[in-house]
């Protein structure tokens, strides 16, 4: 299917056909995802660059590390510097000088979680403007328009967000409303670009929801509402159920999933894309990701440790700096968190690349086993 873009000047319109599967292992897939700005290899991890930047890293460094897609938060960008300004200056790619792919979310999740008195009605999400307190409304159509102005390769449709722990009729209401909102997006009200749909996660109504979405033949599907505190057993089950029901030739994006082990397991179940603030956020708390789990650089034991963070890691940080030095930085200086962000993202990108190549080469099973053995070290 073709990607329909209402901004042909900015986005290179290609007759892309979802994902091209390059290799399989049971349910896991290694694929090629063609986007206007970049041809990506999945499974892949997307770092979150909330306000048009990944904290403290330049776009050259992100390229160096191997980032393929970066996520931008529609809510924050619409606030500052506003989607109109970004549009005027040629879109977010030009604004931040990022040559590869971008993905924006619908803005709904942040509104609900960040703002007081945010409420969801049939029309959309009502909230208080953080600027002047006036009541405002974000409709599904408006969300698409904002994202189009920002100009990402992948945009998300507004969904009725509910906590996974909620039970009862609210779930059903949310699910049906989401489907209605999707129809509004697809209908003539706004041009539909690479729209993805946020799935509902509650098991009972899932089948209806998934069927409804699949019927609408969208460019891709996102599984969301997870990673919010539900127990791991439900988590795997939901992902498994969704990936089983979603079409093979469309990318599957599990939102908010970031622990390395979770990514490996979801990939085994057939998911392709992930995003999470975990690697960069944990870096700012002084924690580094290593094969054995995590390393807390703020710990006193690090003060005299002259080894690199991870002797097997090839990144600039591990090649040049010792744990002792980073230890004394992380407590005092922004530099410490930048170095750790760099390392952590390098780790995640390497994980993505390894997943892709091991599925293609057929060695995927081994990867799961070795990662499973590190379960006890990974903090949940």
């Amino acid at each position, binding site marked *: 299917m073709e990607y329909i873009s209402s901004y042909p000047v900015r986005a290179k319109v290609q007759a892309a056909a979802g994902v091209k599967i390059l290799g399989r292992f049971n349910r896991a897939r290694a694929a090629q995802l063609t986007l206007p700005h970049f041809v990506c290899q999945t499974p892949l991890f997307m770092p979150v660059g909330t306000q048009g930047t990944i904290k403290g890293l330049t776009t050259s460094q992100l390229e160096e590390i191997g980032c393929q897609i970066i996520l931008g938060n529609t809510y924050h960008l619409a606030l500052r510097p506003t989607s109109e300004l970004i549009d005027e200056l040629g879109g977010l790619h030009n604004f931040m000088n990022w040559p590869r792919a971008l993905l924006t979310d619908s803005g709904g999740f942040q509104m609900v979680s960040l703002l007081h008195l945010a409420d969801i009605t049939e029309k959309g999400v009502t909230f208080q403007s953080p600027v002047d307190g006036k009541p405002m409304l974000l409709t599904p159509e408006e969300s698409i328009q904002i994202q189009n102005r920002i100009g990402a390769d992948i945009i998300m449709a507004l969904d009725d967000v509910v906590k996974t722990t909620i039970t009862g009729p609210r779930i059903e209401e949310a699910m049906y409303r989401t489907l209605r909102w999707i129809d509004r997006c697809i209908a003539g009200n706004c041009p539909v670009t690479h729209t993805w749909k946020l799935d509902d996660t509650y098991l009972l109504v899932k089948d209806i929801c998934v069927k409804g979405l699949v019927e609408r033949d969208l460019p891709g599907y996102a599984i969301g509402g997870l990673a919010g505190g539900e127990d791991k057993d439900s988590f795997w089950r939901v992902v498994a159920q969704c990936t089983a029901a979603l079409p093979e030739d469309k990318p599957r994006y599990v939102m908010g999933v970031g622990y390395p082990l979770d990514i490996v397991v979801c990939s085994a179940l057939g998911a392709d894309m992930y995003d999470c603030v975990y690697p960069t956020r944990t870096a700012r708390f002084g924690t580094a990701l290593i094969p054995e789990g995590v390393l807390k650089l703020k710990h006193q034991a690090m003060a005299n440790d002259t080894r690199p963070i991870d002797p097997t890691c090839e990144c600039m940080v591990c090649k040049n700096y010792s744990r*002792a030095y980073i*230890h004394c930085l992380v*407590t005092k200086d922004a530099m410490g968190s930048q170095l750790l962000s760099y390392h952590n993202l390098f780790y995640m990108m390497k994980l993505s690349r390894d997943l892709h190549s091991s599925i293609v080469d057929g060695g995927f099973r081994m990867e799961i086993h070795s990662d499973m053995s590190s379960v006890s070290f990974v903090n949940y």
Partner: protein
Amino acid sequence: MEQGRLSGRATPGGQLFDRNSSSPPQYSQGPARFYLPRPSLFSPYARLAPPPIQPSSLISSEGISLKTISELGGLHQMLGLHEHVFAAVPRDSTISLPDYQSSNRMGASFETPCGRLLIKPLQYMEMISSMKPNMWATLADEVPAWVSEKRNKASVDRTTGGAVFGSIVGGSKIEERKRCAEAVAERNVSGNLISEVGNTMPLGSVRKWSGCDRETDDILGFCLGGFGLGESMDERPSLLGAITNVKEILPEEKPRQICGLGLPEEVLQGVAAGIDLFDSTYIYHLTLGGFALTFPLEEIRRHGYGDQLSDTGRDGSKINLKATIYRKDTSPILEGCKCYTCQNHTKAYINHLLNVHEMLAQILLEMYVPNSLPIAVALFLGRVILTRNFCHLSSHNTHHYLGFFQMIREAIKGGTFEEFRQNFVETRRDHILAAALSA
């Protein structure tokens, strides 16, 4: 320093200071915060790592111990900057100041973020041997220009007493300077040492020189202390001149370093007086405020009035990127600038980053995205000490400031320094006047 070269001296301690490798740069910046290089790149010039201050806070309970620094192999290994020249001075102007009221005969006192620290000479030497900088200055009792004669004398006595500080201080009185110089010439200090030449009151009570206890090689050069602590720009030339103009005090072939002079006009003052190496926090403070240097690096011409905007914090030499007029400005900070930031980003983007308080703003404005060629060295008084090409990418303010030093060197080489200096200062004055008139 011979004509055209900076002489190197190998020391028993193995601190080779080879003329063919990265010679001391003309400009060094106080790195309160060890600016870490971006991936695979190195800052092409020396930095000042002031041991008693920065490392002291590093050496506190959450910091890094001297033993660990030694284990790592010293500053070069710890910071991963193997090709750089490091100069260590006691004073880190970004986070601490010499607290002359608390210094006593036991040691020099500094106000730091960790409280007041008293650094004794022995402690200082331990830091130096653990860090292994390429060159280092002795501990001194720096006092500002307005202290009483008695205090001044005391600081001299401490430093000259020899037993306590072992550093060399000088003053502003000619006769005593001479006396000091003679004393210094006879003493030996450990290699790669830059001796502290303190400056005190303009009353002529010069502090004597004294040598360090260790008797190995000669002094590499001189560090003029006591400046940048509040003296006015008008009185500075005479204070400087009192030290540098008297040939017997500071031999011509030895480099002179000064702390605390950062504004371009102050640098020009220092260069005119004969200083070779500068250390300041000017760039650091500029960047904190969101400023970017923009004064032209080509030949300075006098501009007409009224061609500058006055509502942007702009005075022809720098712009404040927080100003709202830059919200939609898709031009680089400075057209034609070769730094990473100007080659890759727009004023609009940096304006946005500053508004949302993202740290990338500071990085793009200040930090280095270097290449690996070492930097050239100062020209002074027509003598060319240039040893290497100056060619690198760095983030904007640093890049620009280094370019300024390059211009100074070329002006000296071409014999046009005085004219260059005058033009520069007058052009700046014009801009400020124009801004004031149109405000």
